[in-house]
Each structure stands twice: as C-alpha cells, then as structure tokens.
C-alpha cells in the first residue's frame, strides 16, 4: 500500500485500508445482486453500513485525526477547502459517454 502524507500516519493508514478492503470485498458482490427489490437493498445497505462502522469506525477515527493534521502541516487544507467549495461533489456526477444513449 502506498504511504500516507506523513510517516506518523502510515501505520494507521495501513491498518485502516486493510479493514476497509476486507469489509468492501465482502460487501460488493452481494450488494450487486441485492438489487432484487428496493426493500432488500435498503435492508442490506443498512446492515452493511452498520457493520463497516462496527469493524472500522475506531481505526478510521484515529487515522482521520492523524491525516487531518498532516493535511494542515503540508499546507493543503486551504487548497482542499477551496476545491471543496468550487465543487463539493456530494452526489454522484452524471456523465455522458459514447456507449450510453444521451437523454438530452
């Protein structure tokens, strides 16, 4: 796995990434096939979101605190804030592509 911004955060990053990856690998394929009904999807998503929080919530909090400090130390917080302001990207962007027919 790639390093973190500062050496201090790298062990936390590695532990967090491993936690997320093992959760994600168990999550993804059932999530794809859970499309049967909206109710099933909602139930599965809720269970899995809770499982992620239970399994990785603690290490995520430690890693996030560390990396937030590192972002400040590197002088990136202002650039990041500006980029977030210009384009929050809170929702999945709609993008057109040659393989999909355009609706416009």
């Amino acid at each position: 796995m790639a390093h973190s911004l500062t050496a201090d955060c790298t062990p936390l990053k590695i532990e967090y990434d491993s936690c997320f990856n093992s959760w994600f690998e168990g999550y993804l394929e059932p999530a794809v096939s859970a499309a049967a009904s909206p109710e099933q999807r909602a139930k599965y998503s809720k269970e899995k979101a809770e499982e992620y929080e239970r399994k990785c919530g603690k290490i995520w909090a430690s890693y996030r605190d560390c990396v937030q400090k590192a972002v400040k130390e590197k002088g990136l917080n202002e650039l990041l804030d500006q980029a977030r302001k210009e384009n929050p990207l809170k929702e999945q962007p709609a993008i057109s592509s040659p393989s999909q027919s355009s609706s416009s």
Partner: protein
Amino acid sequence: MHYFSQSFNYDHSWARVVIGMWHKYPNPHCSHVVTVDVVDRTVDPRTGIIRTERILGCKQRAPIWIVKLFGGSEDAFVREISFVDPSTQTTTISSVNLSLSQFATCNEMIRYSPAPGGRTAFHQTAEIETRMNMWRSAADKLENWLALRFEQNAQLGKVGFTDVLRQLWEDAKDKPAHVSA
C-alpha cells in the same frame, strides 16, 4: 483548453475492477504516485453508495521554466472523489489538481461500468484549462505541458492497473471475487 478522452475494456468483471481500484498504488508503472490518503468516506445506509474523498501525492520533476514561472516543487497533490454504486454497477472518479490550481485546472473524470462478456468498460475524459489573467504565451505553454504530462500518465495508469488486476485475479479465475490477502 485541452481535451483528452479514451475508452477501452478491462478483461475483468466490474466487481473485480472496483475491488482492484483500492490496490492500484503503489505501482511500479506509476511511481510518481507516492502517497494516497482517504480524507473522507461515507457508506450510505439507504442506497449502499460509497463516497470516498482521497488526496494523492505525486512526485514528478517539472521543467525548470515551470518552476521559475509558477514556483512550486516536485510535490503535486490531487483531490479525488469516487462513488461506487453497486445497484447500477457504476463507479465514477473525479479528480482535480490542488497544486498549481491558482494557474490551471486539470479536471479528470473516469467511469467503470459493466461491458458484454464479463468485462468492464473504462471511460476517461480530462479537461485542462488555464485560469484567466495570465500572460497568454505562458498560459499556452503551461497548458500544453500539463496536457502532455496528463497523456503520459494516463498511459502509465492503464499499463499499471492492468498489471494490478492480473496479479490480483490471475490465480482466482474460478473463485468468487474475493481477495484472501
């Protein structure tokens, strides 16, 4: 403004490509990417969509005239937002440069979606544009250089990710999309 786009297929299912996404770095083909950090992540308990905001740190030598004109160093940082939506099997990744962003922006958009034959379609676009209020010929020069570097890195990214996916899944042809290590 410079515009770049490319599309091709990876010989792996959408789920495997998306799992592989988190294993792309470090990568010998993309040695310019040295740090990768998640700064925000949410798992939507209603839709199951995972949103991830990362900062990628790159080290790539810039020509001396760039450093002289625009300052900066070898270190360049990129903000990347990805959405993984299992219900539609769509992944989108939007990236923008943080470094040199007062002079120019490079907006990249990637999408992975299922393709026939259990493959995955990759579609990438990028728009490179200098901001206003710049000495024209310097702006043109900067934009040309950024576009060239983007295209070189895009090719390295393709070769690098193909290798990662092969290594990740070559021994797992008959197994479900799951990584044991």
